[in-house]
């Protein structure tokens, strides 16, 4: 019970992190017409951050208490 409440709180923390990462002003740092490894910088950042969040969420919820 405590562990799952803790997980819920961790997810809320992640929510706040996501709000920060996918918003002004951080997002403007990557708003440049450049290619990183052949991929547009902004595109790479958004998908990278998105994948990172999903990965952390998966680790949090699937980890045994």
């Amino acid at each position, binding site marked *: 019970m405590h562990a799952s409440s803790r997980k819920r*709180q961790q997810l*809320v923390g992640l929510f706040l992190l996501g709000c920060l990462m*996918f918003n*002004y002003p951080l997002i403007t740092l990557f708003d440049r017409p450049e290619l990183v490894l052949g*991929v547009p910088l*902004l595109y790479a950042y958004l998908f990278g951050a998105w994948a990172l969040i999903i990965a952390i969420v998966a680790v949090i919820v699937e980890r045994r208490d």
Partner: protein
Amino acid sequence: MLQGWLVVLASFGYIGLLFAIAWYADRRARAGRSMIASPVIYSLSLAVYATAWTFYGSVGRAAHDGVGFLPIYIGPTLMILLWGFVLRKMLRITRIARITSLADFAASRYGKSALLGGLVTVIAVIGILPYISLQLKAVSSSFEILLSYPEVVVPERGGSMPFLKVTALYVAMFMALFAIAFGTRQVDVGERHEGMVAAIAFESIVKLVSFLAVGIYVTFGLFDGFGDVFGRAAARPDLAKLMAPFATEGALANWAWMTVLSMFAIVFLPRQFQVAVIENVDERHLNTAVWLFPLYMLAINLFVLPIALGGLLTFSWGADADSFVLSLPMYHRQEALTLLVFVGGISAATGMVIVETVALSTMVCNDLVMPILLRWKRLDLARRADFTRLLLDIRRGAIVAILLLGYFYFIVAGEAYALVSIGLISFAAVAQFAPPLLIGLYWKGGSRNGALAGLLAGFSVWLYTLLLPAFARSGWLGMDLVEAGPLGIDWLRPTHLFGLAVLDPVTHSMIWSMIANVGAYLAVSLTGRQSVAERHQARLFVDVFREPGKRGTACRATASAGALQSLLSRFLGGERAADLFRAYARSRGVRSADELRGDPDLLAFAELQLAGTIGAASAHAMVATVAQEQAPGLDEVMTIIDEASQVIAYSHELEEKQRELEAATAGLKAANERLKELDRLKDDFISTVTHELRTPLTSIRAFSEILHDNADIDPAERHRFLGLIIKESERLTRLINQVLDLAKLESGLAEWQNAELDLNEIVADAVGSTSQLFKGRSVAIETEVAAALPPVSADRDRVMQVLLNLLSNAVKFSPAGTGRVRVRVEPEGNCVRVDVEDNGVGIEAAQQAAIFEKFRQVGDTLTHKPAGTGLGLAICRQIVMRLGGRLWVKSSPGAGSVFSFTLPLAPHSAAALAGE
């Protein structure tokens, strides 16, 4: 070669497969082996979020503004992270209150208000129409494009597209049949449709696979990987612009608001509420969905930008970007892939339409049509025997009507917009549900009127700022209204309200509608009052985790068990109703349903079962038709008052106990003080007694030593010394006797021989025996006795002791020669009083109380040698008190003293006195 018949065959084949899956899942569910009881299936069913908008529209959006399609998927990713606080709570409430739809949820939260449920339904239906028209448009366009294979045509814009319109109508009717077949085969308990969910999950796989297939084909088949697509696009200035889109004014605000909008949409779109909340079979499935569903969205969006750029690079002549997904493989004559994409598009669109129309038809039926029909007295619907058929017919009718309205919207306003822009209009409409439902989930103060006001205000702004311009742009209304404002008032322009420019129309509408919605909701809630039912429901919702399972009805009506069972059987069928009542009877420890009492508990149970089918507001209305509608009856009120007064009485009792306890504590404290005082007095007494004993002993010893040491002492002197020794010895003896006497008196061990006494006689004896003393000091004595004195009850020797003591004191303190002592005896009430008066020095008022204490003598003990033991008066007082009388003194310095005591009359003389 893709023939028309092949396309149609593929479509029907695919849909036949869906039916097979749904049929199989339903059969498994009936057998008790649910197919959808899996977190993966649940996550895939959530992916009904990805519609033709995602499948075709995202690429169109990306071709227009780069990453602008992404907030629609990032928002839900973020929102679902709050599941522990939002979705989980909604799930629990839905389960407890048997919620059947979003409108039902809203109505239940605000006191089972049928009006609110109806308003939510109307907003949902109107708001979703653009979204449905989007699906129709996407499918019919894809059909049209496919039929012109291998030519890639641009669907014409404007009014002259008879073919597309006819196709769209066919598609609409076909989808209606499809939804009816899936969603309204029977009246389900709790509106759960396992077969539908299984089919939706399968559709999610199909659309993902086909989109990934075309994405991989474009990126790695047509181009040489991501680097190649992006590299070539970056080389073109018009496309390079798409890679850094935030430089555009307002783009960041649009991005942020799109994120918020889609956060609301993932919860409040009727179909998302349906799959995420209503169809959920296990709360724990959210654990997996919280990452699997975002992963799905990430996967289906991965190739959007490459396809968009690939399309722009390929069709330099400007094909419709909304159909790149289909036209790219078609252009390169990939027939199988083209067909797969077409089927993927159909699956995306049908999934949305089926779930959306089923959810909306439930709302229309339960929260709009039924409440009206039930209130329509002339129909006398409440008496109807079987409702199941009627419910299904209403839902089927609603599905057809909704799709026709969607088609109508497509004809009127759908052509002028790109897919995503159409969909966002719907998002903005359902976002209006967020304030009353999200705030209402945590704040009990939100009222029904507040929710009504907020929804009306927000929806009105939405109508004015989004729907009206959409109609205007299609040429149905003059563009003047949009461009110049109504009556030419510039600041009322629908898309630039109060001069707010720069923003996207959807963002613009969101800002104003949210201000209106939240503002009205809070203002009305904070200034108005809530009804009892509202407060009850608010508590049920907000505190759902605090009081698990504890619920009841605010209304305290009763109905006969038979009437309730027949009511249930009209909606659920006789067999199911009988089963439910039997189970309830068992849970109550009653043998059969016939023995159930129609109490409020049974009423609440029946209402809950009914709510699972026709919604809370309608269920409440239906149960009310059979219940003896008694606003809290006298009995209930008395019970409530009784309970309250019991509580009050109990607390009074507690207070009383506490007071008693405090009193006892105080008593104990006082007793303890008294004990300490007595202990101190005893110590004082002992030290005083020993001191008093030592004084005569010291004299005796001193004189004895003189006599012992001086043999040649003068005989006269010797005689005097011996006389002193004798006197001191006598005093010592007297002192010891008195101490013993006092101790005996105080301990109550003294022996008393009470008899009827004539006080006159005792006084005469006492005066007689002290006459020698009086003569010795030349003090006169007078006796004044009343004739015929009634006898007193006392111990003769003790009374004598008191009198002798008082008389000897009087002599001692009277001046020699002129002294005069008067003894007076007279009856007083039921006692006899004796006064001994002298004309001596008197006693100061301050010392009058002290003289009755042990070893206290009047006068300065330093200058006067004490004339007595200091115990006489203390003993007298003890004796008089013991005999039932009082002893006191009246005196003033220089004016003599009067010592008085009373003794009670003998019993028979007291009775004789009373009789007189």
